[in-house]
């Protein structure tokens, strides 16, 4: 039996599926050799990006780069290999009183992926992107050399790699800062908003909160357009916690995790079932405002509770469409987008609205710019390309852009903000698609 590294590979959205070479190594010399021996290499972490960003002719999986290197518990600085997942970082840091400064909506992404996508969280307006807290990382470049990249050393590579979607090389390891927490709980307030105007007003009022996010019922039209629930939160201080949570403030009980055992048949998720879900979700909270304490997993990672939830969308897969529209046009842009979705009948199970603060101009490849960002899941079906095209037009008219980490269908003019590509060594299918379109 000779090894054959060609295999079916797909990311979290199960769309597209490709048959390409995928290999994994843990020794630096072997990784160097892999880079030397191949053209068109792309690194892939845990495959939790949605579209075609980490797919390519020769995929290097970082799954065997899974070791911690050091943890300075006094200063909250951790160093680990690129394939370590954020969940693994949290497993050791939370009991020690440290949390990630920035986390996306799943903890099952790799540290390398977090840098390559420069992920953002519910606190972008207050604390920026993941890169703000990265001290340095090691990168294998197109000459198979290992470079240490920081704000001082190889700074050009440092900034090009942040948000650079793997096109500058393979990240081997990274050192980054963690934030102090007193408890593993979040003080949360959830407030119901009747429509878009109200939720925008609530976002403005909540600017002093560290974490803000709104769930939108995207089936509503007319005066109910933008009906939503805004959730804002802070890391709870020890003294604030109710008595029953005060015993073990930094340790959470392990919860059983249901698992989606197979791909749901295509008809399960349709506009009616999503409408019912949205109705129930909105009306689950009967009061206008609810204040409570919840554990960080429930607050940050509600979907991680269900293993393999992507199978709900069936074998044809789904896309996540996330755009940002600059603040001055934000409200009108969102109105048109929600209106278009409601009319299309292609509802999204999950629609999440956030406010981005000012971007870091040094991190020029990062997706966030100041404005409103909406993330939507759509099942792949015949009408989807048309809807994406309509949405793209609106985003383009308002000067917005699309998040590369989730993109697999959008037009190149909305995704070509990536500026770092000067080598042909590291190429993804997404990169080729964007270039060919343009």
């Amino acid at each position, binding site marked *: 039996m000779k090894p*054959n590294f060609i295999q079916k590979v797909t990311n979290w959205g199960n769309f597209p599926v490709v048959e390409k070479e995928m290999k994994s190594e843990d020794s630096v010399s072997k990784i160097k050799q892999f880079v030397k021996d191949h053209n068109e290499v792309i690194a892939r972490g845990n495959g939790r990006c949605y579209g075609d960003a980490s797919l390519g002719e020769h995929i290097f999986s970082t799954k065997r780069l899974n070791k*911690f*290197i050091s943890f300075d518990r006094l200063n909250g600085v951790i160093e680990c290999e690129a394939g370590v997942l954020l969940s693994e970082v949290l497993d*050791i840091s939370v009991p020690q009183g440290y949390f990630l400064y920035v986390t996306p909506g799943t903890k099952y992404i790799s540290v390398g992926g977090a840098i390559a996508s420069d992920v953002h969280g519910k606190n972008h307006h207050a604390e920026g992107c993941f890169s703000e807290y990265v001290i340095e990382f090691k990168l294998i470049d197109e000459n198979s050399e290992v470079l240490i990249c920081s704000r001082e050393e190889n700074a050009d590579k440092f900034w090009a790699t942040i948000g650079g979607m793997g096109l500058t090389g393979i990240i081997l390891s990274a050192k980054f800062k963690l934030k102090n927490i007193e408890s593993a709980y979040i003080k949360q307030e959830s407030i119901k908003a009747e429509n878009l105007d109200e939720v925008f007003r609530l976002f403005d009022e909540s600017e002093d909160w560290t974490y803000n996010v709104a769930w939108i019922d995207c089936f509503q039209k007319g005066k109910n357009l933008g009906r939503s629930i805004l959730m804002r939160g802070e890391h709870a201080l020890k003294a604030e916690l109710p008595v029953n949570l005060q015993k073990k403030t930094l340790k959470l009980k392990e919860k059983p995790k249901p698992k989606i055992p197979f791909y749901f048949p295509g008809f399960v998720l349709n506009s009616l079932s999503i409408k019912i879900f949205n109705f129930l979700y909105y009306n689950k909270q009967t009061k206008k405002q609810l204040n409570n304490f919840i554990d960080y997993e429930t607050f940050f990672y509600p979907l991680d509770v269900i293993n393999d939830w992507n199978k709900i969308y069936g074998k044809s897969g789904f896309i996540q469409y996330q755009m940002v529209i600059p603040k001055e046009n934000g409200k009108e842009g969102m109105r048109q987008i929600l209106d278009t979705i409601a009319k299309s009948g292609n509802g999204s199970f999950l629609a999440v609205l956030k406010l981005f603060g000012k971007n870091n101009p040094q991190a020029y490849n990062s997706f966030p710019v100041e404005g409103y960002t909406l993330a939507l899941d759509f099942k792949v079906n015949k009408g989807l390309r048309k809807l994406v095209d309509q949405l793209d037009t609106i985003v383009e008219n308002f000067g917005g852009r699309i998040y590369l980490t989730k993109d697999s269908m959008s037009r190149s003019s909305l995704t070509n903000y990536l500026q770092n590509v000067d080598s042909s060594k590291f190429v993804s299918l997404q990169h080729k698609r964007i270039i060919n379109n343009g």
Partner: protein
Amino acid sequence: MIILGSNSEVAQAFVEECLAKGEKFQTIYLLSSNPETTEKFAGHIQVKFFQHSEIIPLDLMNDIDYKTLENINSDVLFCATGYLGLGTEEGLYDDENTERIIDVNYAKLVPVLNFFAKRMESKRSGTMIVLSSVAGERGRQSNFIYGSAKAALTAYLSGLRNYLFDKKVHVLTVKPGFMDTKMTEGLPLNPALTAGPKKAAEGIYKAFKNKKDVAYVLPIWAIVMFIIRNIPEFIFKKLKL
């Protein structure tokens, strides 16, 4: 805990499983033919579990310096050394390949296991967990050199278990079946019959705690191997396995 073959993904996953389950070890002795790579793992368990470890060079293909093993003192030994080598088609008539398979999987390994067995015997306590292979249960045309070396190892372990039984030392033979590791990356393995290192480690840990004598990593392998063992030889010789 003593680990033979510390760069094996299964061995590392087993160490993590024990530590995650709250097992305490004063020192974990990481015996390795490639200490440089093992260093990464030593740092990893230090960061993750505050676990102190010591790296000791041990290359079964070279003369063993038993002095370096003298100060090792532990109640649990986990052995994951192994060498798959080339299969029959490419490697049968390659003497170097044949010798290396026999040496690493059996001939050079047994004296080292004996060394530690003797210590446990004199202390009258301990557990030796050794990875053998399903390949050792019946010689098949595709890789019977490897299979025969593992068969020898399995027989050795069975005898050792018998010998050490009234000396209060437990011997656990693990037959992993297909594993999703570096060794098998890129091979077309049936997913239903294949376990990743973490899954394997969980199974081995359970077998260790339950004082099992022989354990398959996935229960399905017990059935598969029962069938393979019981095919009459006059039919078996005609099969392409």
